[in-house]
Structures are given as C-alpha cells and as structure tokens.
C-alpha cells in the first residue's frame, strides 16, 4: 500500500470513529455512502478498527465494533470521541464560499451565513471585519436551499415575496421556479410567473420569503418569449463610467470633444430605465427612442412636484 492511499485510509478512520460514536446504529449502507466508499471497503475499515485500541491491547483496551445486523455500533473508543480540527487552508476555503454566498443570497439567509462565518473564523483564530450593512442576528434562514429543492423536485410551485427595485415595491407572485443563475456577480432565480404568464428574473438577494405549494402550471402557454424589450440609446459622461462597467453598453462610442460615451442598452421594463437615469443624478441621458426620453422627463417632473 502506498503512503498516499494509507494516508487517505487513516484519515477516513479518524473521521469514521467519532462519527460512529455520535451516530450509534448508523446503517452500513448509508455510512458507506456518506464516506464515499463501497460497503466492502467500509467492512474492511471496521475490521481494522476492531484490531486497534490503546497499549495493552486486550479486550479492555481494544475498540469494540459490531455490524452484524447491517447497523454499526462502536464502543470503547472514547479516545477519539471528537473529530480532528480542520486545517487553515480548508477553513479559509470554506470562509471564502460562505462570504460569497452571504453577498448573493436573500437578506435573511445572510444573517445565518454570517453567524456560520463567525464560528469558522473563530475556529481559525481569524479576526474578520464585520460588515455593518448586513443583519447579524441569525434567523435560521434557508430561503435559497428551499428554492433549490423545489427546483429539483420539479413538481411544485412557489409563492414568492419579492422586492422589486424597478417598481420600488414588494410583489407577491406564484411561480414555477426553473433555474438559479449567476450573472454579473449576482444570483438570479428564473421562474415562470403564473400571475402574468411570463418568465421573470428575480435577483436572489431581494427575495423576501418563499413557500412551496402543490400545483401545476395551468392555462396560458408554458413557453413564452421573453418580455418585450427596447433598444435604448444612451449618453454617459465620465462620472457615469460605473454604469458601463455594471450594465455594459453595446456599440460603445466615445465623443472626444465632449468627453462623453454613447451606446445602447436593452431595456425590458422602461420603469427600470426611469429609475436608473434618476439615480445617476444627471450623468446618464436617454437619446432615443423619444417615448423613453419622455418617460424619464415625466418621472423627474413627478418627483420634483413633491418638493414644490
């Protein structure tokens, strides 16, 4: 047996012994599955554990293992009651994934992820900055995993509560969830909305609440083309460079005399464009089509009236 494979086996045994003490009566079948080995390999591991123990090596010191009925019990193994520490590398990799997840999941999920992050960081004796923009209380939230499991079961529907930034309000919709996608650093849920019979994108960090419900997609066509869109041509000054980075502009051109860029962006909902232009504070200007220009002017006028 090479050093590498004996290492892998020993490291498995050091996990198996505490696991079996915590999970007394675990089945041979499930345990083999969990550790990614065949039942035959597991039995051979158990037979080896049975030969080991503490100096003296009589029945008083040896670990006692039985698996007669297909269920494993282990005794006299208190020396290895707990598992081995994880390495710094392993812990840091987990922290990396946890931190990223907390940035893209629904808000309440982030609370749970951050409390997990703090536990792993303390295990590594690592002092991580607290992100003041995130909630810290752990609400035991599992919105993203629930959505994922509904997608996998492919039978049920979701009642979803969602904060729409475009509309600036909460929506309650019944959807058939299709897929979770990662784009531009955000996670999106793609679902077919039964309320208005079209496919919609939901940014995951704005999902407030989900509940799975039994049901089928009925009525309307299941395969709908994307929502109507318009190609809008936009002018961006140098302060608006972030907009190009974030959303990307097609057929980008630079006007060297006025130090501005022009390009086009696909707009699915004119209300999104309205808000993006307002929030840019004058660094974005809609050139065409006229209807979109007018709509932006109207939105700004409506807002200004509140101040008059």
């Amino acid at each position: 047996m090479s050093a590498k494979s004996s290492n892998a086996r020993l490291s498995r045994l050091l996990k198996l012994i505490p696991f079996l003490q915590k999970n007394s009566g675990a089945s041979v079948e499930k345990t083999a599955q969990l550790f990614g080995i065949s039942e035959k390999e597991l039995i051979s591991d158990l037979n080896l554990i049975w030969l080991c123990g503490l100096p003296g090596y009589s029945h008083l010191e040896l670990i006692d293992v039985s698996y007669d009925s297909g269920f494993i019990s282990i005794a006299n193994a208190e020396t290895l009651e707990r598992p081995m520490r994880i390495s710094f590398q392993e812990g840091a990799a987990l922290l990396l994934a946890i931190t990223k997840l907390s940035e893209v999941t629904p808000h309440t999920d982030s609370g749970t992820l951050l409390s997990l992050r703090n536990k792993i960081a303390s295990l590594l004796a690592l002092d991580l900055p607290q992100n003041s923009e995130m909630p810290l209380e752990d609400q035991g939230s599992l919105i993203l995993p629930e959505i994922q499991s509904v997608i996998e079961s492919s039978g049920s529907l979701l009642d979803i509560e969602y904060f729409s930034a475009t509309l600036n309000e909460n929506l309650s919709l019944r959807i058939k969830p299709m897929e979770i996608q990662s784009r531009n650093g955000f996670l999106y849920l793609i679902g077919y909305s039964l309320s208005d019979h079209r496919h919609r994108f939901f940014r995951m960090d704005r999902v407030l609440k989900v509940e799975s419900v039994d049901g089928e997609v009925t009525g309307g066509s299941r395969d709908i083309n994307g929502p109507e869109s318009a190609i809008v041509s936009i002018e961006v000054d140098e302060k608006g460079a972030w907009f190009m980075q974030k959303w990307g502009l097609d057929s980008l051109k630079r006007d060297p005399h006025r130090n501005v860029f022009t390009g086009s962006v696909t707009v699915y909902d004119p209300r999104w464009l309205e808000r993006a232009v307002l929030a840019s504070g004058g660094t974005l200007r809609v050139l065409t089509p006229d209807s979109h220009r007018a709509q932006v002017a109207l939105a700004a006028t409506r807002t200004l009236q509140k101040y008059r």
Partner: protein
Amino acid sequence: MLIMAGDRVDKTERLLNLTLALIATRRPLRKSEIFETIPGYSGSPESMERMFERDKDELREMGVSVQVLPIDPLFDDEIGYQVISQDYFMPDLNLTREESIWLAIATAVLNESSSSINTNGALQNLLSGNEIPIEEILDYSHSWNLQLPLNDSLMTIWQALKERSSLAFNYSTSTNQRMRRVSPHSLTSRNGYWYLIAIDHEDLKIKTFRIDRISEIEPDRKVPFTEPPESFDLSSFLRSFSGERIREVKIKLHREISPMHPLVARGSHSISDYTLPVGSELVLQNIDRNELLDQILWAGDAVEVLEPTDIRDEIISLLEKIIEQHL
C-alpha cells in the same frame, strides 16, 4: 483483500494505534515505549527508527501534530512524543441545523468552482462533531450546481494577516499594472467590494487595495513584516476612506414603502411584514452621501427629503437638470 500471514501488522493499523496512543497518553512517550507497546514495529533498531520517522512524518502531513516534548517538564534531557488534545480535537462549534446546511452548500460551491481545495473531508469533520443528523445535511451538498466566482486572493490575505507576513501581488488600476509589496493590516468592505488596508513597502504609506484588482498574490518571504506607526488609527482611516457621511436625514414617504427597501432596511432593524404607510416621516442615521442621493433618486416620487436642506436643494437641482436633459 490480501490477509497478511503471521504477525505482520497492516501499516494503517500501526498508524491508527500510534495516533490513539499519542493522544491518550498523559505524558510524552519515549521512543522505546512506542517500539515495545505498539504492534507493528519490528526488525533491527535502525529499521524501527526509520519506520517511526516515516510514520511521524506521515501523521504530520495529515495534520496530526506530533509534538516533541521533554518527558519531565523540569528536565529537558529526555524527550518523548505526544499529540496534545487541544491541538488535535475540533472544538464544539454548536452549529445549528441551518448553519450545517449552509456549510454543506459552501462545500458544494467550492466543488463547483475552480478552487483547488477539496473541503469534503473538512465538512465531514465539522459535521460529525455535531448533534445534528448528518445524512439530511449532506443531501444538500449533492446536485447543487451553483457556480459563483470566488476570489482566491482573500485566502492568501487571511493567512498573511494571521501569520503577520508580507505579501507580494500584481495590482492593476485603470492606468497601470505593477507589482506591489505590502504588509497587510486589515480587510474592509464597502459598496460590495473588499479592500485590503496595507503598508506599501515602497514608500511606507498606508494604502487601500481593491481585492478584485489583485492577482498573482503570494506571501513575500524576502521582506519582513512592517507594523503601522503607533499613531495609526484604523477607525478614523476608515472614516476618511469611506467618504462623507451624513449624520441624520429626515425623509417623508409619499407612497407605501417596503421594509426591504434599501433606504430603510439598513441592518439596524430586522425585516418583518409591516409596510411603512404614506405620510410617515423617518430619520436615517449615519449614511454615505453618495449612497443616499442614489437611493433617494432611485425611489423617485415615493420619497421626499425634508432635512438637511443642502441635500434637499441638491436633489431639486439634479432633478431639474435631468428634466432639461430629456425635454
């Protein structure tokens, strides 16, 4: 599997017995005691010696820290071997069921990403110290094809912060790209980006580096770690780094607003089912000026700023400018 004849002991068996003995012992074990008691050490003294050296190295490679310690703490003339329980065992993390599930998902994300580190074993170790049934949890780590872009630089930075070692990396700004050598001080995040605060060895100034602009990062063994000057105050540095903050802003709602709205969901209060009714006046505290303007304007005619007047006036003039641009 081949059954070994006679008293030949399987190597894994010898290593497991050695580990158990080194953990269970109350004082360091002499090499001679190890050879006498643990089954599997045989042959000439030299070959037993060689076997033990290899075993010790293998255990260390796996993360089992075999320590060399004096047998009598008062005299260090005789040494022995021991694994200190506090170093070896995972402390109790009291993970909740939900935290355990997220941990399984984090492992799945790592498996999907390009990260070279496999954390399946770490996951098993973290979960088997738990009171929570492991089977249900591990179901979550399967068939989860979530590909997230992970920035490996953070791992190297964490390690350097912990070990207080210098770092070398390639840093690109909009104008150039070059090698930087720094002593890391701390990490902070702002507007969704991570920043490293570090002392640049070139001019010994404290600077911030955006993590996503860092590449080819590695520990810099050539340069010793530099401490920041005693006068360095992290919190005031962060204040100046993060731009102007407005202490108090009074706003009025002209439409119902969701508690999830970025303006009001600012971490200090938890999310519940209520909506804020039309006509409510709210006071927002300690908010970044640019972020405030962005969010107020994004909300359109739903929100009006009442105070301070300079913010109110600025919003009015921005709106006038936008109208003029779109006539």
